[in-house]
């Protein structure tokens, strides 16, 4: 039954003209199916191999494996491209040096180009720096001049004020003047916002509201 099913399954995947073929492979049950009911309790007999035969089989197999390993290793060493390349150190060294020389030439070229650019850049930078320093110097001088002018102005104003100072000689006169002309700094503000100067002053008429 199993065989029929698996054959049918296979046949479905075959082309039209291969219907008459019988597959030789995959005739049995697939691996993933459980043990057949009729085979569940079957105990396969252990193979009885005589000691002599067993030893001889072991000897032959061991010899075969050793010989095959030896041959395989020999062929690998002799023909492996990877190992050959590794072994040829002279050629590797030569190739390396050639590559290095080529790389060096390219590097020198790049260095020369870069040197040119760098020199230009440095000259430009120097020029700019000198210009900047000169500008700064000029600005500094200008500012110093301005400061000096400001100071001169202050001195001039102070000198003007010197004439109004109260000297000991004119102290009595100044006191007299102050007594004769009292100044009242008090003031009041009415509801309309008018400022009424003086402590004792009475508003005579209604003043206009200051807009």
């Amino acid at each position, binding site marked *: 039954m199993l065989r029929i099913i698996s054959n049918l399954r296979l046949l479905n995947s075959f082309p039209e003209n291969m219907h008459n073929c019988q597959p030789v492979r995959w005739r049995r049950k697939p691996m993933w199916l459980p043990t057949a009911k009729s085979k569940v309790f079957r*105990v396969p007999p252990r193979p009885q191999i005589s000691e002599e035969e067993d030893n001889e089989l072991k000897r032959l197999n061991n010899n*075969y494996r050793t010989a095959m*390993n030896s*041959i395989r290793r020999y062929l690998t060493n002799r023909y492996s491209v990877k190992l050959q390349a590794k072994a040829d150190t002279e050629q590797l060294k030569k190739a390396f040096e050639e590559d290095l020389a080529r790389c060096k030439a390219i590097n020198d070229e790049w260095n020369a180009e870069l040197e040119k650019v760098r020199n230009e850049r440095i000259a430009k930078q120097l020029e700019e720096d000198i210009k900047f320093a000169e500008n700064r110097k000029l600005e500094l001088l200008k500012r110093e001049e301005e400061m000096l002018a400001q100071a001169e102005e202050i001195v001039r104003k102070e000198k003007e004020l010197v004439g109004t100072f109260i000297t000991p000689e004119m102290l009595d006169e100044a006191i007299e003047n102050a007594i004769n002309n009292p100044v009242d700094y008090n003031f009041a503000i009415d509801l309309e916002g008018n400022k009424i100067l003086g402590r004792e002053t009475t508003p005579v008429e209604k003043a206009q509201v200051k807009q």
Partner: protein
Amino acid sequence: MPYKYIGRTTNYKGKTLWEIIGNLKNFGVGRLVIRSTFERYPETSFFKILKVEPLACPEVQTMDDQRKVRVLVEKTFRGITYPKPITIESTSYKADYQLIPKDEEHKYTSKVEAKRDIKILQRTMEFPPLMKDVLMRENKAKGEDVHDLKLEIIYHKTKTGKYRVAEEGETPTVTFQPNMQELPKISLYKNVKLSSV
């Protein structure tokens, strides 16, 4: 009731290690135990118990879950005693151990070898005929020496130290025979006659 075994047979013969030493005085320290698996070799193999450390018993002891035990033993394998003692723990559940009665211990201990003769294996061998022919032709085309073509033998490396490959110019004690040039004298080849080609 005796067990009635069904199914496939096993190579093991004996009891688990705990079944043996759990019944002995002082856990059988100083006694000899053998693994029946190692009895296949002609040389003697046994364990001498040095120290025992019992382990917990499984809650339900079945045939698939046997009690283990940690045992320090002096191992003698194929006639050679190991320099350091080894621990048996992970294999102690195997029903493959047998106790040696005290009066039979000398049968095992007396066969221990002090030093093993190291086999010296052949270093090189002949190439297979066709391959040799091809290689010789290739070498000739390259202008190299065509004589004395020998294949270096690659042996399986083991740590047992029972054999080593011969040095250059050393005479090997064991020759390697990959071909059927000479058949061993056993009953299998009794009626085989090699035609001399």
